[in-house]
């Protein structure tokens, strides 16, 4: 009984850990730039593919399999620099335009990045083979839990704390919050918004690419993996509240765990469950659990 409970909870929390990283990227960008970045799922996919390539290069160069997580995480973070390119090269032109243009532009990115992935890595599932099993398993109350899952959950938690610290305790965090609250005032006080936007978007991108890289040993990269995840990431954002980091954290846990429970108790509800929660939140608390009243 206890073992089953642990299995279900660990499944849910593992799913939530990845979901949080993607949703956090979505939130930080929306919070500051007011851009709803549809391409966050594509960054996730990009991180996954680059992660696999990095790990393959690492093992081909004779790197010890036990250390594969280092090149994996590093690649996931580094590929986040496409954020600067996308922000400066594309998004910076549409900040003053209607929101529809911004949505269209990020949607165009979704399509383009999917093709970039397909042309670069092909269409077949792409994976790190059996490295997932390198770290073995531990026994938790009679349940077998892959250690790698625990590493991902731990990493996601650390990143959540790190972002919380960054936003609350650093000068850059204060600027971000100021810019999110009142862009004109922040600019009037001498903040160079172009830099803030570039940094924030890169941070958002890197969260997504890191999420993709971290999940990949446990699964396999497929060109449409981002689209699958983005639907759930939207649910997370709606439940947690648009623009809220705490909302992303709690929302991801809610979606991950409720999905796992639904699959175990009444599998027909797997997808419906998430939408039922979304509907409930929209009816009872339209701004989400941690969302602020629109300004």
């Amino acid at each position, binding site marked *: 009984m206890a*073992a*089953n409970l642990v*299995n*279900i909870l*660990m*499944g*849910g929390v*593992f*799913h939530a850990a*990845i979901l949080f990283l993607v949703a956090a990227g979505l939130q930080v960008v929306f919070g500051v730039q007011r851009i709803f970045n549809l391409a966050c799922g594509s960054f996730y996919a990009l991180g996954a593919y680059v992660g696999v390539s990095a790990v393959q290069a690492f093992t081909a160069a004779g790197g010890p399999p036990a250390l594969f997580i280092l090149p994996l995480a590093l690649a996931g973070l580094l590929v986040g620099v496409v954020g600067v390119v996308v922000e400066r090269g594309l998004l910076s032109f549409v900040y003053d335009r209607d929101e529809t243009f911004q949505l269209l532009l990020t949607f165009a990115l979704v399509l383009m990045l*999917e093709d970039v992935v*397909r*042309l670069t*890595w*092909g*269409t*077949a*599932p792409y*994976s790190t*083979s*059996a490295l*997932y*099993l390198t770290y073995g*398993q531990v026994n938790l109350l009679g*349940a*077998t*839990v*892959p250690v*790698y*899952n625990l590493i991902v959950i731990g990493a996601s938690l650390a990143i959540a704390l790190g972002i919380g610290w960054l936003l609350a305790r650093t000068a850059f965090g204060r600027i971000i919050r100021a810019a999110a609250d009142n862009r004109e005032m922040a600019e009037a006080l001498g903040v160079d918004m172009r830099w803030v936007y570039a940094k924030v978007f890169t941070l958002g991108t890197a969260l997504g690419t890191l999420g993709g890289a971290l*999940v990949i040993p*446990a*699964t*396999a990269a*497929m*060109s*449409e*993996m981002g*689209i*699958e995840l983005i639907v759930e990431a939207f649910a997370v954002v709606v439940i947690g509240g648009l623009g809220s980091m705490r909302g992303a954290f709690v929302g991801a846990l809610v979606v991950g765990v409720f*999905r*796992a429970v639904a*699959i*175990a108790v009444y*599998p*027909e509800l*797997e*997808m419906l469950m998430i939408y039922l929660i979304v509907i409930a939140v929209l009816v009872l608390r339209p701004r989400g659990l941690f969302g602020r009243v629109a300004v």
Partner: protein
Amino acid sequence: METSRREFLKGVGVAAAGSAVGFPAVVSAQARKGVPSGPVKIGVMPIRAGVAAPVGAAGQRGVEWWAERVNKAGGILGRKVELVFEEESNPKDTLERFRKLALQAKVDVIVGGISTAVGLALGPAAEELKMLWLSWDGTTQKGVEETMPNPTYAFRSVDNEVEAIGGALLTAKYFKGVKTIAGINNDYSYGHDCWETYQAVLKRYTPGVKSVLELFPKLGVTDFTSHIAAIQQAKPDLLMTSFWSGDTTILMKQAAAVGLFKTMKACFTTGGGVHDSLKKEFTPEGLILGYNSMYFNHAGASPLLKQFVREYKAKYGEYPPYECDHGYFTVESYKAGVEKAYKAAGEWPSKEQVAKALEGIEVESLSGKRSWRADHVQMCNFFQGITTHKNAFDFVTIDPVEVLPTAKIMKPTTSTKLLDWINATFPLKG
């Protein structure tokens, strides 16, 4: 398995080169009476995007390999073969491209179609446009019921549920003690039909067998940790799945991470679609694994299959999956159909004459003999067996290999009611 841009362009290049050499072929073609001089145009419709893209690539490679060989040997009745590619995607767009091939490119025959949703759209279009269509893997079934009982121009793949029947037969044979089963199948027609059919056949052998869990994740899901937790909770004796794409590999890996198959048997009816990604590190021995209609490592492989496997490995760095042979068979049977009809007519046959000639025709395909039944349904052998690590690869293969002919594991006509037939046929005698 990958279709790189270069290779894709090469495919286009082959088509272009084909049309370029079409003119010189005038000279050689005039040798035959009543045969037009230009090239034979074959429309090919592989899926290029999404989960089924590797399947589409495999079908295309099978066709390209065939075209290269046939052109080297002088073409069909002296006419060179030219491949014209159009992508298979959703039913609506694919239908438009199908019409474009028929009306604009004026091809002689169209091969391809993997999704049955697409097949349901192409079947009627083939009849309406009077265009020969030889499907690779798609059928014109809605669920397990046929929608086109008497086609003239449409030729379709084997019944969708055939692999599940084969899987159930092997389950009854190799896993005798199984009392409780769980199923994880994709949430669309193929997944549901396979699961229902598998249970129906297994019940003919083990009447008391009970389903304790049914999971239907949608196609494209990449995380099954929660599904596996549910399977662990349900504790079945056996897990059945008809997964055929990358999700097979993911399920296998995530199951291995928690030791799932240490406590239960498993039947992967169609997992051979991604066979070379099922690495030994995470794929245990002793599971049932189905390779659909071609098994690359078959001990009884023909010289043709051996050559194909060798050249495929050299060119793409991997071992060919089954869809290659669906592709190869459609074009090889078309060639045989044309030649047969030519003998009777004394001139290049019309599409109607080729269609008639195709009914009941048998050809040597990669996997062995394959044929079109008189009612336009593919007939072939299915290959399933028990996974083993005793091979020279880093992935699993099967031993023993059970060869299951469609004559035995598919209902004899498209109008036969599936359940009645199952109840009347199984358990098989002898």
